[in-house]
């Protein structure tokens, strides 16, 4: 059965949407992208802060050791050294866990990278709740908020390994600072090489008339499954992949708010300052053409646990998302 009735022809999702053939950690998409980019362009450099294997920079390091720098456990220096290299005309990727970079080096990202306006692309891996057992200290749930406040910065949260790869390739072309977050946990690879990707333009994976779910990252696939559950409840939910949080696709936000009267935003991030907030900023300044329910982690530190249990507890699995959407639809009427 195909879950994407309307846009399947243009979105080129996998054939059996809910029976994915492959499941992979989205961070692998980063590892593949930088090897590909490194091969094409001798000005591509990669830096890491003692996490080369887990953030997949070791694939690049093996092939291009002369363009790889291991800075050790020193994220502030990671951002600064990258800025220096980028100022020499290089495109630099820096990779570490999201809680450390950009969690720990925000000032360096702000001044050395964004104020200098040099092409450093941050890869924040192990972001969101799905890092699971490591617990709250390691769950990057504020990274979108702190990055999207920065001038010159683009912020992307791709939905699967395939899209991660495209996002890094697209970001490299911009020659500007960018932040892209990925997950450690394996997730369905449900988009394909043919699925379009354009920074700042949403992908609509399922049409719907009652509500539009705007999701990013790991939450996109969960939202597609949630839409299936909602169908059984008689709710026709659209699913929009809002991979780019900054710049937000204002046109899509307004269009869907007008069309359905209700947007539910779903993200693996605090409800303050993330994708939902970015959508709210658009709606509030466009005379609120529709209502908005921001769903995410509600101003709390979470805890250790396996991914499935955590997503269930914080209502960020398909069942939880469906519940939240159902309630929002009820309140809309």
């Amino acid at each position, binding site marked *: 059965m195909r879950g994407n009735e309307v846009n399947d022809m243009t979105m080129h999702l996998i054939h059996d949407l809910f029976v994915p053939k492959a499941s992979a950690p989205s961070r692998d998409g980063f590892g593949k992208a930088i090897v590909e980019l490194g091969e094409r362009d001798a000005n591509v450099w990669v830096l890491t802060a003692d996490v080369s294997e887990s953030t997949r920079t070791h694939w690049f390091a093996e092939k291009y050791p002369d363009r790889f*720098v291991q800075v050790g456990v020193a994220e502030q220096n990671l951002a600064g050294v990258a800025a*220096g290299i980028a100022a*020499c005309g290089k495109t630099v990727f820096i990779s570490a866990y999201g809680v450390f970079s950009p969690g720990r080096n925000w000032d360096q990202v702000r*001044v050395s990278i964004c*104020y200098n306006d040099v092409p450093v692309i941050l890869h924040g891996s192990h972001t969101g709740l799905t890092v699971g057992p490591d617990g709250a200290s390691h769950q990057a749930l504020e990274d979108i908020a702190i990055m999207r406040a920065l001038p010159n910065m683009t912020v992307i949260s791709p939905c699967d390994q395939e899209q991660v790869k495209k996002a890094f390739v697209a970001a490299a072309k911009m020659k500007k600072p960018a932040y892209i977050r990925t997950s450690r946990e394996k997730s369905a690879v449900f988009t394909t090489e043919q699925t379009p990707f354009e920074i700042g333009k949403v992908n609509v994976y399922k049409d719907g008339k009652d509500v539009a779910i705007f999701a990013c990252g790991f939450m996109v696939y969960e939202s597609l499954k949630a839409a299936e559950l909602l169908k059984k409840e008689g709710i026709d939910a659209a699913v929009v992949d809002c991979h780019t949080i900054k710049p937000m696709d204002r046109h899509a936000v307004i269009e869907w708010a007008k069309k359905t009267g209700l947007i539910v935003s779903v993200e693996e991030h605090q409800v303050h300052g993330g994708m939902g907030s970015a959508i709210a900023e658009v709606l509030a300044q466009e005379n609120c053409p529709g209502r908005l329910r921001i769903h995410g982690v509600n101003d709390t530190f979470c805890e250790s646990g396996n991914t499935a249990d955590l997503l269930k507890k914080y209502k960020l699995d398909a069942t939880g998302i469906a519940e939240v959407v159902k309630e929002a639809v009820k309140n809309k009427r």
Partner: protein
Amino acid sequence: MCTKFEKITDVKKLKVMANMIRQDVVKMLTEAKSGHSAGSLGLADIFTALYFNVLNHDPKNPEWEERDRFLLSNGHVCPVLYAALAEAGYFQKEELMHLRKIGTRMQGHPHRGTLPGIENSSGPLGQGLSQAVGMAIVSKREKKDWRVYCVVSDGEHGEGQIWEAVMLANKYRLGNLTVIMDRNNIQIDGFTEEILPLEPLEEKYRAFGWNVIHADGHDIMKLINACEESKKSEKPTMIIAHTVPGKGIPFMELLVEWHGKSPSKEQAAEALGYLEKDRERIENEGK
């Protein structure tokens, strides 16, 4: 094609240049009505040595690929950088009077991209050295001839990031990196050894794998020689330049209160009087 900047080797000319830079700094800060006097004046001889002798650069072609890179890590002393750039010909001297004014290129702290000759934006301390290390890695890996120079402050060594960069420079044996520390012993809240003791700095840097040279921060020829000596080292070099904050203006010298303050019009007139006399003395030297 680059028309490489002609270096000044005559001591007297260099001293006069340092004096001119000090006069520029006093005028700029007075006009701006805010800014950092002590550090800017204390660094005038170091910036003279760098911009008029040590650096290979081309003010008419600031983007010349083979130029030496100069980074200022403690951006709050930018009046001395702007004055050196203007005297070297990167832009018109009149523009110096725009310091800290709206709609101008003379930002209160340096911004890369706004003003020609600025390699790095700075302000928040501890960030310039990391960028210098990044550039030195590129130059070394790509076997370039250009070197990287960086001025850091002493108080800035309270930032952990400095030590992160220091360790990485040792790891990659960045012999093409010369760092000059403005060892003036003061920071905003007082004396460095009272706020957060830094000594023994020489032993610390040696333990971190660096080549260390001490220099009188007001002896231009010694500074030039120290930079020359640093080129022979396979290790990164730290030149600890001992300076007098507020150097050249007797009522400012060694006083912590002048760290983050600009002179009034009356004070500026008095300061410029001292500097003019000093210039005459330099020009009459050996006559």
